[in-house]
């Protein structure tokens, strides 16, 4: 590694930390392969989006301050999630009054923060990864990554470079899967209807693997796929790009 290697703080995200650490390790591998020095601040918990989306701005702002402090000094902050990435990049600055010290710090953090795959392609100029992963894959665009951060081609471009991956586009890949954080438990009926449509398109694509960039959406879709006995495997994009086919797919037996 050269002296110019950027120092990257990994924002693990609360879901990856609790449910699927292998995504975090895949992210570390990808970042290191791209030439970054990766550190994981210990004091991080959650980006605060659940509070923000529940109308509790104060808690969201408190948690944002924690994240801002935890990631001071890193050249870049990277999250394996478009949703948490979007929260930091788009919404942190909205939490504080313009002109305040907090606001300036939030703007500064936002400018240094990225979703993982778009960071690899846009900042580290990665155009291909050195990985093998056998999969006929279909990619679901998670909403925040797509509409808040404009991520669309980046994951497809890198996935196409993985040896063994063939991409099969599904209809309406850009339509929400029905997760929506607390939405999916507050309105399970609507969420289920949205999932039902999503699963129909996934099945019709002919893919054997479903890939997305956000664990929340993946848990939602995997949960229903498995409930219905589907054999389609569910993976986070980082796992595939890192060639981690050894870890069992989401919601499947060890």
């Amino acid at each position, binding site marked *: 590694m050269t002296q110019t290697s950027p120092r990257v703080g990994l924002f693990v995200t609360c879901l990856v930390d609790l449910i699927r650490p292998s995504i975090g390790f895949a992210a570390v591998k990808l970042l290191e392969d791209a030439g970054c020095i990766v550190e994981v601040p210990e004091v991080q918990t*959650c980006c605060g989006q659940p509070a923000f989306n*529940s109308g509790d701005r104060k808690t969201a702002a408190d948690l944002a301050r924690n994240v801002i402090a935890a990631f001071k000094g890193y050249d870049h902050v990277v999250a394996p999630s478009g949703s948490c990435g979007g929260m930091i990049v788009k919404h942190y600055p909205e939490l504080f009054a313009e002109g305040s010290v907090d606001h300036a710090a939030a703007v500064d953090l936002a400018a240094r923060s990225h979703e993982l795959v778009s960071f690899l392609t846009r900042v580290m100029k990665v155009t291909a990864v050195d990985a093998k992963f056998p999969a006929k894959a279909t990619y679901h665009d998670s909403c925040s990554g797509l509409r808040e951060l404009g991520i669309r081609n980046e994951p497809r471009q890198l996935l196409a470079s993985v040896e063994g991956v063939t991409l099969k586009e599904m209809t309406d890949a850009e339509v929400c899967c029905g997760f929506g954080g607390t939405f999916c438990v507050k309105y399970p009926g609507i969420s289920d209807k949205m999932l039902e449509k999503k699963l129909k398109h996934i099945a019709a694509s002919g893919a054997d693997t479903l890939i997305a960039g956000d664990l929340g959406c993946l848990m939602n879709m995997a949960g229903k796929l498995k409930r219905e006995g589907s054999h389609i495997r569910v993976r986070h994009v980082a796992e595939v790009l890192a060639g981690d086919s050894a870890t069992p797919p989401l919601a499947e037996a060890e």
Partner: protein
Amino acid sequence: MDTSTATFPQNVKRALADSQLQHAMTETGPRFISKRSKAREALPEFDALRDQARDIKDHVLAYLDLYLERYEEKVVAAGGKVHWAATAEEARAAILGICQRVKARTVTKGKSMISEEIDLNHHFEANGITPVETDLGEYLIQLRKERPSHIIAPAVHLTRDQVEADFRKAHTHLDPKRDLSEIPALVEEARQVLRQKYFDADVGVTGANFLVAETGTSIIVTNEGNGDLTQILPKVHVVIASIEKIVPTLEDASTILRVLARSATGQDFSNYTTLSTGPKRPGDLDGPEEYHVVILDNGRSDVLGTEFQDMLRCIRCGACLNHCPVYQAVGGHAYGGVYPGPIGSVVTPALVGIEKAKHLPNASTFCGRCEEVCPMRIPLPRMLRAWREKEFEKHLQPQAMRTGLGLWAFLAKRPKLYQMVTRLAARVLHNRGHGTGRMSSLPLASGWTQCRDFPAPQGKTFQQMWKERRK
């Protein structure tokens, strides 16, 4: 206003179980989307026009009082009259007053959401006046005694079979062999019935897509031409519109018109764009003898200058409904108010109060597709979130949710404690999966597990493993 907004969860249940509704929604939803997308692709300057359209309305809203005054002057100069209505009651009273003065017995009506907002038809009926809806969709809704389920396609919740059955029930003279399976045949059939009504009507009521301050003109767009007959044939024409329909000039109206139909139906332009300015002048061949404009506020001016002001840019194109996965899942009636879909979830709390309408801003995944397609670039998710903030401030959320979020926030603010708890949770939940990698039930999480399994954690937290690896 009568509303079932408060019972949103029950309305949703009914909607999800209604197979005809579900069938109708899957038929029409995708069609609107592909038409809009084609229209957009065919016009390279579409997004630039959206910026202009937004700027026009922002400018109007900043000087709304001036433009409204200007508009009134011009209407009066053209021989018309403006009636200001602060509330729905005042609007109803003004319209009824006009109708009673000319001893109206039937009133033809063009499509108008403001008419729905002030519940005009019921008021007419209660006062012995027969309202006749002339837009095909509205006509159907009137036959069925329902409310529109969509801003521009009021009967979108109905299947063709239902529509045909309704026609046959109401139009008993119909030859049972007559083919009514296609829309044009239905429009033709409605026209036959409506023809005489246009001539018999004493007053014609229309909405307005725009009120033009520079000329005192009201503009409506329709696809069936029913609006023209409604406003030209009766002796009296009453326009009902809300204050934010104002645009400064005809030029501004044309700019917004270029994004309106494209966003709504994917047409370059609606079939009819009709301008009316004042009553019939000496020498005119046709036109009404009286021209009235009832301008409704109904809480809108309270929204000016607040975080909700942007909602007043809305041109009621319906694109946000067509692209909303929640609207497409439950249809418009579930929202229980006058305006369904994303814009309805922003407007309804302003009309009926967040207490009654608190479900609407919550029934969104913030997927952002509405904002992505809105021709007026209204930040709908941001405003839905702002309503949730009001709800939070007023302590309207269910206790269980408040407690849960409160506990989570308490932990999330204390990283050390948080990591102890998550380590424990990762292990306990992992074990609950019994090696299958998932669980089909989970205490306190029935909202999740009623329709999907819960993926089991891998067993250790990332932080835990990261530390172990570094040792």
